[in-house]
């Protein structure tokens, strides 16, 4: 059996250390962190390679030598990617979508195994895969919510006005509603 996981680039360790320091409250590493992300695009390629290797390993388990099943699963994965990606996904969104697709495939396979033979280790695998799937979805939702680009003037409709919001707190603004194209 061949090893599908590529070797991690050395800059990944440095990036992990910078992230750990920044999360601990050390804001002085932020410029270095930004520079590291900008100078090392191979980190994104590395994650893409791992995702591709994971998909190959799972496809071998799911489909085996059945080409019809293999192609059907690949089409379904592309459909999921297109649905989640939108028109212009960022590199981070693309990476997280790959993670969702991989987790979805693994969860589906573990679910099939658990249904066919209700053994304890199959149930544990299914729980672990499902948990990873939900984490991946949550990460993408967080990125889409926090890092979404603000709507342009062309996207804002001058003809729609929201109902006046009642109560305190968020949502008291009365303004124009952004409309997606």
């Amino acid at each position, binding site marked *: 059996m061949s090893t599908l996981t590529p070797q991690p680039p050395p800059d990944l360790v440095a990036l992990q250390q910078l992230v750990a320091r920044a999360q601990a409250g050390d804001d002085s590493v932020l410029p270095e962190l930004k520079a590291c*992300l900008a100078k090392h695009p191979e980190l994104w390629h590395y994650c893409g390679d*791992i995702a591709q290797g994971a998909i190959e390993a799972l496809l071998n388990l799911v489909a085996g030598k059945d080409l019809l099943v293999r192609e059907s699963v690949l089409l379904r994965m592309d459909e999921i990617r297109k649905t989640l990606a939108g028109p212009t996904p960022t590199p*981070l969104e693309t990476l997280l979508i790959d993670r969702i697709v991989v987790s979805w495939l693994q969860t589906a396979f573990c679910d099939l195994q658990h249904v066919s033979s209700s053994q304890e280790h199959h149930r544990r695998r299914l729980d672990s895969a499902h948990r990873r799937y939900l984490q991946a979805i949550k990460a993408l939702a967080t990125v889409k919510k926090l890092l979404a680009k603000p709507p342009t003037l062309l996207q804002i409709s001058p003809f729609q006005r929201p109902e006046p919001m009642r109560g305190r707190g968020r949502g008291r603004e009365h303004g124009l509603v952004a409309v997606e194209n």
Partner: protein
Amino acid sequence: MPWLVRTGYRYYYRSRKVLGRGITTYVGAGDVADQAAAEDARRRAERQARRTARRAEEVYHDAADASVHALSAPSDTLFRAVLLTSDYRQHSRGPWRKRRVHPDPPAAT
């Protein structure tokens, strides 16, 4: 041992556990014993083959699991790095929040 030899004759016994206690049952001697022993050996070989196939399958499962798991750490690192450099902070492993930029305090008069 399933076979017991007494006075030159071989007798076949089956042992099993019931409620944690071992129980031995006499099967027979001669042809009956031979048939029972052959059937038990066949079942044992089938169980062993199933166990071997399951272990071989588990090796492939573990490899696929490892490759999926290998994606989590670096993708999580990049996810955190992008959010941190976009002025977000994760409060106590909870939600991510935008950093607050406090205005400079007014000069003392």
